[in-house]
């Protein structure tokens, strides 16, 4: 039954194709447009591109998780999960499924883009790893924001949870500079992984509490 629920959530997201295809396409469009705003002749440090990709991923992930719980709340599916005491499982599965269908593809698209800028494959793979990890963190917090304000289109919840992502962005920035300078990344990466583990373990419980309060 447990594996069944995961599959059901995956199926639901998969069928709602615009939710997971959309962000990847938007991301593609944004990163294609970006170099156009820069001077093609000047030597732009890779740092700018990487920093831009971190921010774009942040915003596009926000787009992708906009309705993660709202939709199920509106049509009564969330209520059903609550009655059957499956809320906490569903929160985990939904986040997992969004990460697999949105977060990881996004990371791959970014990876290809970075490679296309003739940045070394070493740096590009590090960027890929970082994006895969930080996307899970982003998705967790944006889901928290969505859970706080379940009504469609309300950005209040998102607005509130973005400050929590600032430390993550700073870590990503540090990783960028360290990689480009050839310094050791072990410390920064393990910090990122640590944050991801903490966040992915605790935030779903908070989300479950918030959803249950909404359903009262």
């Amino acid at each position: 039954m447990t594996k069944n629920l995961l599959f059901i959530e995956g199926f639901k997201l998969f069928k709602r194709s615009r939710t997971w295809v959309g962000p990847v396409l938007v991301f593609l469009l944004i990163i294609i447009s970006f170099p156009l705003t820069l001077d093609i002749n000047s030597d732009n440090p890779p740092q700018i591109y990487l920093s831009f990709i971190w921010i774009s991923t942040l915003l596009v992930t926000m787009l992708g998780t906009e309705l993660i719980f709202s939709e199920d709340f509106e049509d009564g599916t969330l209520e059903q999960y609550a009655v059957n005491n499956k809320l906490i499982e569903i929160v985990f599965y939904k986040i997992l499924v969004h990460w697999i269908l949105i977060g990881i593809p996004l990371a791959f698209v970014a990876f290809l883009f970075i490679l296309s800028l003739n940045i070394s494959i070493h740096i590009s793979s590090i960027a890929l790893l970082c994006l895969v990890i930080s996307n899970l963190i982003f998705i967790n917090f944006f889901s928290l924001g969505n859970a706080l304000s379940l009504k469609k289109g309300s950005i209040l919840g998102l607005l509130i949870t973005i400050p929590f992502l600032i430390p993550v962005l700073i870590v990503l920035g540090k990783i960028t500079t360290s990689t480009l300078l050839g310094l050791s990344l072990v410390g920064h990466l393990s910090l990122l992984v640590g944050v991801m583990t903490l966040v992915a373990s605790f935030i779903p419980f908070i989300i479950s509490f918030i959803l249950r309060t909404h359903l009262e």
Partner: protein
Amino acid sequence: MIKKFFHQFASPKSYFAIANKFGKPFLTFFFLLYVGALVWGLFFTPPDAVQGDSYRIIYMHVPASFMAQILFVVMAITSAVFLIWKLKLAAYISKSIAPIGAIVTFFALFSGSIWGIPTWGTWWQWDARITSTLILFIMYLGLISLHASFENKDKADKFFSVLVLIGVVNIPIIKKSVDWWSTLHQSASITLTSKPAIDPVMLYPLMFSIVTFIGLIFGLVILSSLNEILKREKYKSWVKNI
């Protein structure tokens, strides 16, 4: 048994009775003392060797920054009390702290800006302290609008409390991480935590202004909480009898 006693003792009604009586006098007392502290600091202390007279803004800026952070911690404590023991009074107090926290934080940012102009030649700097204070300000605003956006105020209290608790963990993290970030771009910032460097002549009025400001702000919190209680309990009989 103890829970029942607790609930009876810490009921909005009994708190209101006490706070209503002592709130205004308390506030007036500390307000006057704070004004006294300012007068002391503004007129009865020598000018600074480096900054001249412009340093005097610290008598307003430091208490404000300090209170901005302390208020958030207090809000976190009352929120935790609310979530653990389901004490409604705690939620009322939490919610009434937020607007005051926002104003104090804004004042801290504003006075900091004014201080920056003669001292560093700039009204803003992206260092750890200022950035995390700005984010603190945004958090206060976010909390206020979150609570306001819910019809059902009991639910609003729960969401508010959860967010405060996550926020209280996040604010120090932001501060540390921006600090870590800015070590690549070291900029001169005067830190008042290096106490030995400050002359006792200026330290005493500073401490006095901090202490009186704390009293002043708590007076405001008490008044604000009274207001909140009246708003939220307006259908209760004891409120109708006032």
